[in-house]
């Protein structure tokens, strides 16, 4: 499975959205992606890609697209 597939799968399983929803998905844009959902989601992101995100980056991870930029800082290319 490619990194992009893993990345997409995390969103799809965590928030139960459709693939076509991903490009416009934002933090607090759906009920499931609230502050509680965000913490579990970020934990799964770290475990999946074996990285440790800084607190600032976790807080800055505000959308599907923004997340790609942040993961790139940790050497995860999508």
């Amino acid at each position, binding site marked *: 499975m490619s990194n992009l597939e893993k990345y997409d799968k995390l969103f799809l399983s965590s928030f139960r959205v459709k693939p076509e929803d991903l490009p416009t998905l934002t933090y607090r844009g759906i009920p499931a992606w609230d*502050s*509680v959902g965000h913490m579990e989601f*970020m934990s*799964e992101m*770290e*475990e999946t890609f074996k990285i440790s995100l800084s*607190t600032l980056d976790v807080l800055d991870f505000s959308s599907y697209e923004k997340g790609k930029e942040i993961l790139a800082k940790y050497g995860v290319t999508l």
Partner: protein
Amino acid sequence: MMDILRWTDPLAEGNCYVCAEGDRAVVIDPCHPEGPASLLEERGLVPEWILLTHEHCDHMLGLEPLRHKYPEAIVLCSAPCDAGMQNKYLNMSAMMEVYLTFKGKPGAHYPPLVCSPADQTFAEEHTMTWRGHTLRLTPLPGHTPGSTCILLDRDTLFTGDYLIPGEAVITRLPGGNTEIYERVARPWLSALPPGLRICPGHGEPYALTQEVKDTYGL
């Protein structure tokens, strides 16, 4: 006569309870590296047992320092709590700075941590007697896999992150499970008798009433 003392962490607002009998104590949820130990020292108490209501770091941040200071104290918790406190994701310490920011406390330094294994664990309901008192520890997964309520002498219940005044039960953090909460924890909590003294993991202790139960849908 047992004294029940409470120490509250000003940052994460978790409660540590110290049940004191003579100069000995049972500590429930050592939530801070210094606070509970200071309370014990001030009162001249020596802890014999350290019990945990669940694995979240805001309830056991002071566990390792307390063990270091009182190596004879026995750490007892449910088996899933034991596993969870050894994992920075399940114990929430990996996300604690984020959590505190969401709670309006940005900039706190709260590095991820793990604890060493408990001395004793239980998988089913566990009853212990201590200096003439009975403590019944009931595993109630849902909020976390290791969540446990601790009933002292049939009249005081330490509930961890269940029955927190004004807050709904959270089952969506790592390891939480709504279906298990509904199937296991909620029926048990629903059967609690009014009049019980509730000592929650956050907030002030209070007397359980039917009105309170109604607000939690119990």
